[in-house]
């Protein structure tokens, strides 16, 4: 039977408790100190509905309250326990390194929003269009400069400028648990002094944004050439 994966934890397989999707009990599949937390898949593969996403988040947060974890990408389904063990074995060093990186830390998010969304009048020429784009980019860059003081408060950070036209800034910070309040205070101060938009702080989240290296070390053996 297929397995739904939730997280990789630094724990004893027997210490994994809780309930996953479809009221299936959580279980740990271990390999040399690493545990992949799974539950048996019910009749259907988990679909990304609102309720399912909230439920997934709830399961991950319960795991995070007990163990250092790397949350799995939503929708990960493995064929069986052997596949789970192979995944742990093949990426053991990388996963160990990531777990050490997030141990004792949480993710805090900063989302920027425009006070006044950039106007999009129809451009009469290519030059006018490009100038308009540059102006939007410049305004979004101001958000990135504004949040610079947050970086020293975090172990690591990932800042995306203008990831979507309606979103000038999207940032994730890996912050020590005991520094989250300080982080929030500084974020609130930055927001209060900013007129061109608003900064919204969310979290603490499980370390979704820091669970995966920027560049995957992918195993291309067996890939078609």
């Amino acid at each position: 039977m297929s397995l739904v994966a939730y997280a990789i934890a630094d724990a004893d397989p027997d210490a994994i408790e809780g309930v996953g999707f479809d009221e299936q009990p959580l279980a740990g599949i271990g390999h040399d100190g690493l545990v992949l937390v799974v539950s048996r898949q019910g009749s259907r593969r988990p679909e990304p509905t609102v309720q399912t996403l909230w439920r997934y988040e709830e399961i991950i947060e319960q795991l995070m309250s007990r163990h250092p974890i790397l949350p799995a990408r939503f929708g990960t389904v493995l064929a069986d326990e052997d596949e789970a063990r192979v995944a742990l074995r093949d990426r053991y060093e990388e996963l160990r390194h990531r777990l050490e990186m997030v141990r004792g830390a949480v993710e805090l998010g900063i989302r920027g929003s425009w006070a006044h969304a950039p106007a999009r009048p129809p451009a009469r020429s290519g030059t006018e269009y490009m100038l308009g784009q540059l102006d939007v980019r410049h305004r979004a860059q101001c958000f990135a400069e504004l949040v610079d003081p947050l970086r020293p408060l975090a172990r690591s950070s990932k800042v995306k400028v203008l990831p979507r036209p309606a979103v000038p800034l999207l940032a994730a910070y890996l912050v020590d648990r005991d520094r989250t309040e300080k982080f929030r205070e500084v974020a609130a101060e930055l927001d209060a002094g900013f007129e061109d938009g608003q900064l919204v702080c969310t979290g603490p989240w499980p370390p979704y944004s820091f669970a995966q290296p920027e560049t995957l070390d992918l195993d291309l053996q067996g890939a078609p050439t």
Partner: protein
Amino acid sequence: MVSGVAPGASESTSPVFEASENPSRLPHHSRQVTLVDILDRLLGGGVVIQGHITLAVADIDLVELDLSLLVASIDKLAGR
């Protein structure tokens, strides 16, 4: 605990709800902020345990998989 704030709130970094609460009870604008954050993280973050397997098929499959998840989620959110 996951907390978030409404876009129009005066104290923008004060927690106003928890993820464990029933989202249907939350103010609509608060849910929007958090749902976007959840979508970004759950569908775009986390360990890709089977990454090497997916890529072994072809790069484009990985892209299509992510896209299908996202499209499905937007459809669900829009109640289509």
